[in-house]
């Protein structure tokens, strides 16, 4: 209702002066159309067009002195209405907040593009707010709502129960047995651990670290032949392996991929071009399936994943590892 009345007054342009309600008693200036009228400040009702009427813009009305019963505006409180109605113009009695809102609304209405932008922004904000409920609010509530049962009241009298004491003793025995079993998995011999992510190795003797350094492992390259018929993956296998053989002054028998990779024709299986001397260093240890721990000519590439699956070490490390490990020693690769 108020809005409609306000609209009416807005449609009529400037509010008409009503002769009957002339004595406003609040000192408002009808020309300003201001609704923020200080009510009850003057006991003598001045005329509405009185030039001495103080013009007030903004600010709130001192309440409790008078109100305009005709407008029923909430901006002024009723109760001691000794003064006649301020004016018949409802727009005069609207609160400053409402007036400001009205101004903003008019401003926005007069600019369609701004209005559209605001509508889109509001819609996006609403959608985001809605989405935050299942994505963030619900999980947060799940986390915080409920009672913990991890802690409970201890009853020491239960320890006197023979069945329970027996059960406790059995559990202790079981724990001891499991601990012994678990300890048996840890090798007492010398073993080596290879980290293929950082390309580092660690040599352990009697469960103590005795040497560590850089190595090179598989390059994670998938090599495809030109015709696309054959392919090879150059990666180092992971898991636990054992040293299956130890070789001094190893000779590399080049597999097919070594020729394919260099763009050379693949020779026969016993062709002399398949054998290369000195490229694997002074020592090599076999892990099975053609994988070796060996030396390298490309020492600057140590610490990088560049091999075809074997593990390369520098000369000093290779010698130390070769001397420390024996056939059957464990090699852990991860």
């Amino acid at each position, binding site marked *: 209702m108020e809005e409609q009345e306000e609209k009416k007054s807005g449609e009529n342009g400037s509010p008409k002066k009503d002769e009957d309600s002339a004595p406003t008693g609040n000192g408002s200036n009808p020309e300003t159309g201001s609704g923020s009228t200080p009510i009850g400040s003057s006991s003598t009702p001045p005329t509405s067009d009185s030039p001495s009427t103080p013009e007030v813009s903004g600010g709130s009305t001192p309440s409790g002195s008078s109100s305009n019963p005709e407008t029923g505006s909430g901006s002024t409180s009723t109760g001691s209405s000794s003064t006649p109605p301020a004016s018949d113009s409802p727009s005069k009695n609207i609160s400053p907040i409402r007036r400001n809102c009205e101004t903003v609304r008019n401003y926005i209405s007069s600019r369609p593009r701004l209005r559209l932008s605001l509508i889109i922004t509001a819609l996006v904000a609403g959608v985001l707010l809605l989405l935050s409920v299942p994505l*963030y609010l619900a999980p947060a509530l*799940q986390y915080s709502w409920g009672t*913990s049962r991890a802690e409970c009241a201890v009853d020491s009298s239960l320890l006197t129960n023979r069945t329970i004491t027996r*059960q406790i003793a059995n559990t202790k025995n079981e724990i001891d047995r499991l601990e012994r079993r*678990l300890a048996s998995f*840890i090798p007492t011999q010398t073993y080596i*651990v290879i980290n293929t*992510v950082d390309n580092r190795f660690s040599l352990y003797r009697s469960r103590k670290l005795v040497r560590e350094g850089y190595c090179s492992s598989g390059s994670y390259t998938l090599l495809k032949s030109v015709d696309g018929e054959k392919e090879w993956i150059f990666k180092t296998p992971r898991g636990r392996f054992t040293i299956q053989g130890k070789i001094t002054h190893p000779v590399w028998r080049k597999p097919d991929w070594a020729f*394919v990779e260099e763009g050379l024709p693949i020779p026969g299986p016993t062709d002399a071009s398949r054998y290369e001397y000195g490229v694997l260093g002074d020592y090599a240890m076999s892990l099975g399936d053609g994988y070796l721990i060996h030396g390298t000519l490309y020492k600057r590439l140590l610490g*990088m994943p560049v091999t075809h699956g074997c593990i390369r070490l520098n000369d000093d490390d290779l010698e130390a590892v070769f001397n420390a490990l024996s056939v059957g020693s464990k090699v852990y690769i991860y």
Partner: protein
Amino acid sequence: MIWEKHKWYIITAAALGILIIFYLVKSVSAVNNTVRTFDDAYFASLEQKEGDTINLCAIPGYIDMIRDKAFLSSQVKMADSDSIGLLINIRDSVIQLLIKGLPIRTVRIDEYDVSPFFQRANQEAVYSMLSTPLNITGMQATFKKDPLQVKIAPKDTSEAKIDAKPDTTDFEAVFFTLETDSNIRFYFEQQEDTVGADRRARFFFDLKDRSRDAKATMKAVTRFQTPPYVPYIKIWVPKAEAKIIYRAIPREGLIVLTQ
């Protein structure tokens, strides 16, 4: 007058409000429902009801013994397998990579967050579940598990060249999740602050995960069913360590958990 003018706005807002409240109530009840189902399944396996047994938690020190036993039992079972395993010890804030029972790498947990499920469920039932390694059933990450590069063989020697590419993963955001057959999900996050592209990668990775859960919840809510709830453990570790763990763990690897 206001009602007449804004009737549809008010009706829509009220309907939306009711839907949101219903969704939230159902979501919250999902946790309790999962806990109840889990506890019931455990006691059903014992052919007992929860109230029929002595609460082992009340026996001084006994629940800790059960926890230790479950932890050791699970480790032994994992050591018996050939797989590379992951040991997550929340209590001591330590993660270990194990091969056949041998710890090959130890990582300190910087920070962790455990799902309320583990506090609300019967502790005896929880340790019973953890006495066997959890099998990994799925993994997602912001980086490649196997950074495989495809190389086409050169046609002749003139095309051939030696190429050594350093690992560039240090420049990638490191976040990953591991799903297990026991319906427990592990989140691993880099402890280093995320900036720029890392932050975006983390945000979208997290959003994808949340969306998946929200979708499942919404599906259940629209059918007036209790939504599913996946208990989780979030772990923050150094970026380089998280990368090593993810690359080392087999796709169907094992996890030993104690908390």
